[in-house]
């Protein structure tokens, strides 16, 4: 006890704990405890990426097994190849040498094997084999480590799925990504995965997963990456391989000294404009060094590539040799066609839906000359084969004659090859229609393809997106040789533009980090006036995304993620667009007329009116539609009809059909949203059946409609714009900018052939029988093409004006500022300068088509392929010749 004093104040008893005595029992806390390990995850980018990949790998067990087998397969292939090359005595196999057996005369397989020591020695002596073995050994070890690492990571993801998201592995296939995502958003409130925000949005998740991919898409969109080349002899071609892509990513995103300091932030010096020249120099020298490193590593990479190609494709080729002739979406195509914020599986499912139509489209273009040759070669080969087979059937000793079996095989292959060049007699190809169907799935397409679907130029350009598998493999194989040169000679020159690109188009989002500003899908900042965001966009030409990428991506994201709450302006844009599409369906053409300045033969109105079931299904529309039914037996209608078939499944689709038919007259839902989900949920019949999977399929159909609509409107708008400017031509008003930029996208090119703006297809959609402005626009047509010249030439002759305005609006470091106006970002795929059509063809085209009535109503490029003279016509397309068929 403490000593007693006379005062009231007393010293407290000293205690080890400095809390006042007794208080321990009063103030008691209960720990929250970190029961779940999922709070505050360090690398959310990687975490979300893995989560999004996980379902596509079908869960943990599949992934594990798949990877194990891959490793084993690799070992086997290398081992077996080496064995075949070194340890087999082929003389014995080919019976050039006889083995003397004591017991039997039969040659057994083990007889052909060399003894172990002999073949071991031969392997050791062969430097090349040792080299290959070493490379594959390193490769295999790398794969093994990666495998172990992956297994650990995916085990974690698996427990995240089961424990945090409460999805069992069994039910995983039943969940769509959207549902997984909704749960992640839900989880965030509880576990706080991301510490910056209380709530995550869908866009945050997408931004994290696709941070770098969005940059790549934007760079391809702005033609920043050197992937287009004009090698002699080959014409314009695209070269974009995985090796090149890897190098780009190495340079920009994660390699030593890359622009990004971590996965989520750009280095601060790249955000400042001050020393951009210096930084560009630095980048250029880095690219040079990486290029040289590539050159040095070239032999290794080449061997690796060959081995890789051999391992991956030989088996496939053996199994189905036709697969080499099949096509696939090229790497460039995937980049070009990808929306901002579109996950891999979303892109792939979209492209896969377009695959069939695309390959049919490509098959339209069989050379008639080849067909004739192929037919005859097939005839001769076939007759030889028939004789050989007949003889064999008669007496099988024929087979024992040397080379009979091999010649039968060869002849068979020859006939197969020839047959692929002979078109099916009973098929009718309609390129224009097919292209529209493709567009419904791939969503992006240069303007000049429309109306030119039957031309070889279009086909060639499309084949850049959709290449032969064989070409793909070939490109991959040559990639190690070509990549260093692309890096050193092409990419290095662009270093300043790259620096500027990253500075101008990087925004820091709280809770996400630095992302590509295009991926924000902000119409105001990156909208293109020719793509529906006229008046809403404040973007300079440098900032506008080409091909309506911003607008289409926005629609795509809003449709696939209905829960997403966009900013108000964006919401406005989306609802406005949806409303327009809806209005189109009601057949209320007046509104559209006022909107585009002429009376368009509205494709959407027609084709949505065409199949009433579909219209009522998607748009919740009522009976007024049926009035327009007969209008359209057109490409769009059939396009959509096939869409509906592909997207609605089984019983559901039939239910919808019948319900749609039955109720289309009675059920009136005026003003309801165009959103398929809203429409369908209005009816109690379907509510039970509509799983989210079905809904997501509707979403894709809905997106197709919107994509078609936006393209159509873009065409009409840019056309309308032009005719408007025909009238105001002399005024040289500032607003002509918008046309200048999209007309003269090939701007600065002195070649007079390029002066025709890409909107030259406009008059196609102008019917002759319209009252009001149309006759005048008709009479103006020659003038118009004149004016188009003027606009196109704006950058050239009138140039200074347009250029000045442009550079004034370009932010610092824009292309214009560099005085490289000539290298202004062209629209990616179209490249006005690459258009081979002579100018007079354009004019003829323009004029003839103004006279056509309802071109869309009739698929005027339809012709049977096998009949000789029509094919002839197709191969030498001449606009005037098509006129009669168009007047059907």
């Amino acid at each position, binding site marked *: 006890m403490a000593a007693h004093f006379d005062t009231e104040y007393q010293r407290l008893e000293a205690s080890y*704990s*400095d*809390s006042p005595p007794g*208080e*321990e029992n009063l*103030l*008691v*806390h*209960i*720990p*929250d*405890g*970190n029961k779940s*390990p999922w*709070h*505050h*995850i*360090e*690398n*959310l*980018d*990687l975490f979300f*990426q893995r989560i999004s*990949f996980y379902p596509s790998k079908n869960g943990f067990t599949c992934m594990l097994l798949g990877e194990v087998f891959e490793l084993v397969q690799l070992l086997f292939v290398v081992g077996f190849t080496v064995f075949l090359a070194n340890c087999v005595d082929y003389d014995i196999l080919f019976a050039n040498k006889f083995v003397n057996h004591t017991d039997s005369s039969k040659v057994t397989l083990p007889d052909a094997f060399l003894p172990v020591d002999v073949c071991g020695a031969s392997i050791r002596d062969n430097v090349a084999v040792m080299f290959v073995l070493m490379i594959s050994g390193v490769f295999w070890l*790398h794969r093994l*480590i*990666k495998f172990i*690492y*992956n297994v*650990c990571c995916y085990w974690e993801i698996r427990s995240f799925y089961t424990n945090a998201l409460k999805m069992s592995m069994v039910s995983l296939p039943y969940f769509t990504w959207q549902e997984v995502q909704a749960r992640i958003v839900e989880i965030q409130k509880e576990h*706080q*995965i*991301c*510490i*910056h925000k209380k709530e995550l949005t869908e866009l945050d998740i997408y931004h994290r997963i696709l941070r770098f991919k969005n940059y790549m898409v934007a760079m391809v969109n702005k033609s920043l990456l050197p992937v287009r080349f004009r090698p002699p002899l080959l014409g314009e071609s695209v070269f974009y391989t995985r090796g090149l892509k890897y190098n780009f990513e190495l340079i920009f995103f*994660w*390699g*030593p*000294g890359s622009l990004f*300091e*971590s*996965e*989520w*932030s750009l*280095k601060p*010096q790249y955000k400042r404009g001050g020393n951009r020249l210096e930084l560009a120099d630095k980048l250029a020298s880095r690219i040079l060094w990486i290029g040289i490193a590539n050159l040095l590593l070239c032999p290794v990479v080449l061997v690796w590539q060959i081995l890789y190609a051999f391992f991956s494709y030989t088996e496939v080729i053996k199994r189905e040799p036709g697969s080499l002739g099949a096509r696939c979406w090229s790497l460039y195509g995937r980049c070009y066609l990808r929306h901002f914020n579109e996950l891999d599986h979303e892109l792939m499912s979209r492209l896969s839906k377009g695959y069939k139509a695309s390959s049919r489209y490509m098959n339209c273009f069989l050379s008639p000359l080849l067909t004739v040759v192929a037919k005859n070669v097939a005839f001769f080969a076939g007759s030889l084969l028939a004789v050989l087979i007949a003889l064999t059937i008669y007496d099988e000793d024929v087979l024992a004659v040397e080379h009979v079996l091999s010649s039968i095989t060869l002849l068979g292959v020859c006939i197969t090859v020839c047959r692929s060049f002979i078109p099916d007699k009973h098929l009718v190809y309609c390129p224009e229609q097919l292209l529209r169907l493709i567009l419904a799935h791939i969503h992006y397409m240069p303007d000049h393809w429309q109306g030119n679907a039957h031309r070889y130029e279009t086909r060639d350009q499309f084949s850049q997106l959709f290449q032969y598998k064989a070409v793909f493999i070939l490109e991959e194989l040559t990639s190690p040789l070509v990549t260093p040169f692309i890096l050193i000679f092409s990419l290095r020159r662009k270093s300043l533009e790259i620096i500027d690109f990253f500075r101008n188009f990087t925004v820091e989002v709280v809770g*996400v*980090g630095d992302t590509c500003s295009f991926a924000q899908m902000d119409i105001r900042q990156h909208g293109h006036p020719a793509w529906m965001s006229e008046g809403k966009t404040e973007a300079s030409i440098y900032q506008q995304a080409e091909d309506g990428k911003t607008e289409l991506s926005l629609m795509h994201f809003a449709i696939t993620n209905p829960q997403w709450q966009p900013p108000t302006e964006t919401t406005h844009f989306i609802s406005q667009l949806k409303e327009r599409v809806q209005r189109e369906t009601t057949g209320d053409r007046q509104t559209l007329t006022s909107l585009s300045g002429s009376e368009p033969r509205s494709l959407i109105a027609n084709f949505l009116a065409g199949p009433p079931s579909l219209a009522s299904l998607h748009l919740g529309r009522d009976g007024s539609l049926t009035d327009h039914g007969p209008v359209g037996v057109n490409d769009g209608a059939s396009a959509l009809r096939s869409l509906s078939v592909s997207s609605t499944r089984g019983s559901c689709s039939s239910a919808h059909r019948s319900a749609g038919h039955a109720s289309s007259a009675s059920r009136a839902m005026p003003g309801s949203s165009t959103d398929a989900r809203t429409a369908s949920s209005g009816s109690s019949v379907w509510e039970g059946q509509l799983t989210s999977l079905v809904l997501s399929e509707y979403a894709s159909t809905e997106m197709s409609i919107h994509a078609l609509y936006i393209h159509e409107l873009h065409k009409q708008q840019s056309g309308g714009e032009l005719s408007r400017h025909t009238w105001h031509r002399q005024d040289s008003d500032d607003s002509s900018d918008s046309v200048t930029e999209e007309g003269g996208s090939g701007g600065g090119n002195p070649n007079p052939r390029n002066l025709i703006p890409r909107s030259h297809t406009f008059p196609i959609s102008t019917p002759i029988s319209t009252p009001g402005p149309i006759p005048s626009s008709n009479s103006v047509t020659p003038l118009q093409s004149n004016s188009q010249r003027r606009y196109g030439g704006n950058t050239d002759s009138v140039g200074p004006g347009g250029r000045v305005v442009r550079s004034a609006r370009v932010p610092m470091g824009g292309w214009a500022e560099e005085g490289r106006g000539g290298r202004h970002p062209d629209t990616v795929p179209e490249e006005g300068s690459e258009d081979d059509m002579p100018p007079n063809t354009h004019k003829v085209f323009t004029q003839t088509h103004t006279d056509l009535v309802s071109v869309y109503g009739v698929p005027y490029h339809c012709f049977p392929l096998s009949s000789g003279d029509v094919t002839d016509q197709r191969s030498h397309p001449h606009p005037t010749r098509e006129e009669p068929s168009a007047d059907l």
Partner: protein
Amino acid sequence: MNCRSEALEVSVEGRQVDEAMLALLHTILLHRSTGKFHYKKEGTYSIGTVGTQDIDCDFIDFSFVRVSSDELDRAIRKAVGEFKDAMGNGMDGMGQISLEFYQKKKSRWPFSDECIPWEVWSIKVNVVNLANEQERQICREKVGEKLGEKVINIVEVINRHEYLPKMPTQSEVDNVFDTSLKDVQPYLYKITFQITDTLGTSVSTTMRRLIKDTLAL
């Protein structure tokens, strides 16, 4: 990225560096420390008290409050001393000292424990040279005012309702708090510094990322 970062910047004279740094670091740590936890049965605990102490600066017209824990003070003084030595005495220079709060996450055997930062305070220091006593006097007052502002900034940031690690159970307390001190229990922290802002990341981090990336997918 999954980490808040706050930046502060001060310009001080060479001899003021350590006091200014101590003032700021101690202010932050004052708000990021709790009393010792005493766990009871059934997963409850009580929190000990934290004493505070006013410190007057010698070279700045400023006094600040710090946790009255000599051990903590010693640890911070050591870090600041190293920082000052690295800066070089009395020369013009720039430096950055950062205070990082992190959590440990236990991981399975082959990997070492992960340290995941959740808040990083980086304090940039500009060292200025002054010509005469007059300027030094002015600087003395100026820096005092500035530091006062910074302290208020810090308190504002800390008052926001933002992510803090959840209170751990007894077994996990080492993952969140630094329990090595006898009288106080700050969140796990580490102090690092960097002298000139070197361009580019160091070779080791790049290599680590290179390896990680090849492993990743």
